C-alpha cells in the first residue's frame, strides 16, 4: 500500500480515520489472503477473500482520496491481473485435457501435488483455483469501484453537471480535481 503523500491538506476525513485506516489496511489484506490460501481448509475461499481484499482498497480510497488510491492500483494493472486470474483458472482446466483427462480434472490428473490431507499445500488444483478466483474477485471489486467513481469525470457528466438531479458530495471528488 502506498503511503499517501500528496494533497495532504485536502483530506476531508479526520486524522483518526486516516490513522486507523493506515493501521488496518495491511491486516485486512492479510486476512483476505489467509481466507484465499486456506480456501480448501476453512470456510471461505476465493470469492470471500477476494471481496475482503477489494474492501481494503475501497476503505483506503474513502479514508484518503480517490487519486491516492488510484495511484496504488492503476487501471492497467488491475485489468491485467483480472485477466491473469481468469486465465489461471482456465489453464488449470486445460492442463487436465493435455494430460489426457477431462477438463478441470483434479485428483486423477495430479496437476498439483495432493499433499498431506489437511495441510496448506494439499487438495491439488483447488489451491491454485482459489488463488485465481481470489485474484479475479479482488481486482474486479477494486476496479469497478474506481470506474464508477471516475464516471463523474466523463464528458456527459461535465456537460450536464448542472442538469443532473442530484449532487454527489462524497469523497471530495469535485473539489479535489479541477474537472
Amino acid at each position, binding site marked *: 500500500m502506498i503511503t499517501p503523500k500528496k494533497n495532504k491538506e485536502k483530506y476531508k476525513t479526520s486524522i483518526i480515520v486516516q490513522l486507523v485506516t493506515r493501521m488496518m489496511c495491511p491486516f485486512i489484506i492479510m486476512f483476505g489472503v489467509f481466507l484465499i490460501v486456506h480456501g*480448501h481448509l476453512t470456510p471461505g475461499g476465493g470469492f470471500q477473500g477476494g471481496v475482503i481484499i477489494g474492501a481494503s482498497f475501497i476503505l483506503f480510497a474513502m479514508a484518503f482520496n480517490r487519486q491516492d488510491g488510484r495511484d496504488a492500483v492503476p*487501471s492497467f494493472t488491475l485489468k491485467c491481473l483480472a*485477466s491473469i486470474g*481468469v486465465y489461471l483458472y*482456465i489453464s488449470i482446466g486445460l492442463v487436465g485435457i493435455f494430460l489426457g483427462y477431462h477438463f478441470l480434472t*483434479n485428483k486423477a490428473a495430479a496437476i498439483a501435488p495432493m*499433499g498431506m490431507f489437511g495441510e496448506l499445500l494439499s487438495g*491439488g488444483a483447488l489451491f491454485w483455483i482459489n488463488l485465481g*478466483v481470489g485474484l479475479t474477485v479482488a481486482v474486479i471489486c477494486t476496479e469497478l469501484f474506481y470506474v464508477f467513481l471516475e464516471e463523474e469525470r*466523463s464528458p456527459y457528466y461535465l456537460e450536464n453537471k448542472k442538469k443532473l438531479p442530484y449532487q454527489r458530495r462524497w469523497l471530495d471528488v469535485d473539489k479535489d480535481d479541477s474537472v
Partner: protein
Amino acid sequence: MKKFVPAILFTVFAFSMIVVILRFAPIGDPHLPGYAGFDHSENTEKEVWEMTKEEVVQYADSVALHYNRHSPGDTGALDIITAIIFDYRAYDTLIEATVLFTAMIGVLSIIGTKKN
C-alpha cells in the same frame, strides 16, 4: 412460410417440454437420488424395503451422503463446500468468475476511463 416454420418449432419444443414436466418425479419423494439413493454395487441381494434400519444407514448413498463420505478422498480438501464448488461443480465456479470478468468488461466498455 416464415411464420409457419417458427410455429412448428414452437409447437414441437413446447410439447416436448410439457411432456417432460408431466413426467417429473413427484416432489419430496424419498427415493429420489438427491434425497436417498442406495449403493447397489455393494449390496445387491436385498432391496431397500427388505433392509433393516442399520443396513439402510450403512448402504444409503444419496448425493449429500456421497459428498459427506467421499469428498476428502476424491478431492483432498478438508472443507466440503470448497470440494463441491471448486471440484465437483468446477464448471459452475468457472462461469461465475467469467461472469464477474464480463461485468467488468461491460462496465469499462460503457463508462470507460481516461488513461490512468
